[in-house]
């Protein structure tokens, strides 16, 4: 309970400040929103490290090869950063930029996941008579 409350309180306070800030200083409002997202993401990262360590042990226990897990982590990181950047672009009112960032993110994830796709297709082909 104690992790989520500061974030929620800060978000509420900041959203009311933004209402005033957008009229007088729109530039500061956009920067402040971006800064808040960065700070929240930084706070979320440290617990994320433990979650990943746990999944790593589970994966090793279940015999899943490390490379697949590594690819999964990279895809997660790419999605994490893409969502962060596209949301900030949308906050600043730049829909076009957000679409560009999301397109690039999807491409990166596709490139990262290529080995898995190749593996799946090969195993399928071997199954056929």
């Amino acid at each position, binding site marked *: 309970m104690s992790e989520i409350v500061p974030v929620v309180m800060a978000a509420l306070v900041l959203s009311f400040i933004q209402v005033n800030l957008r009229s007088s200083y729109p530039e*500061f409002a956009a*920067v*402040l929103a971006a*800064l808040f997202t960065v*700070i929240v*993401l930084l*706070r979320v990262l440290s617990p994320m490290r433990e979650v990943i360590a746990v999944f790593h042990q589970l994966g090793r226990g279940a015999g899943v090869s490390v490379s697949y897990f590594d690819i999964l*982590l990279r895809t997660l990181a790419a999605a994490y950063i893409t969502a962060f950047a596209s949301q900030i672009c949308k906050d600043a009112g730049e829909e076009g930029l957000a679409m560009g960032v999301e397109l690039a993110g999807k491409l990166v994830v596709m490139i990262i996941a290529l080995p898995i796709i190749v593996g799946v297709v090969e195993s399928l082909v071997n199954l056929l008579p």
Partner: protein
Amino acid sequence: MDLSLIYRIAGVGILIAILNIFLQQAERKEQAHMLSLAGVIIVLIWLVQMIARLFEQVESVFRWY
């Protein structure tokens, strides 16, 4: 570290707001706009540094390197 950055930015914002009022009183609209632009640039520099730190942490957390 994070919270101190928010207070620094709030400080810069308040300072610029006050100075803008003075400049408007003295009929120097251009300086006022220049000043708020300078303030935004300073805050942007801090923001970029924070984002750089965030990306380093993401790299280390998700073992991207």
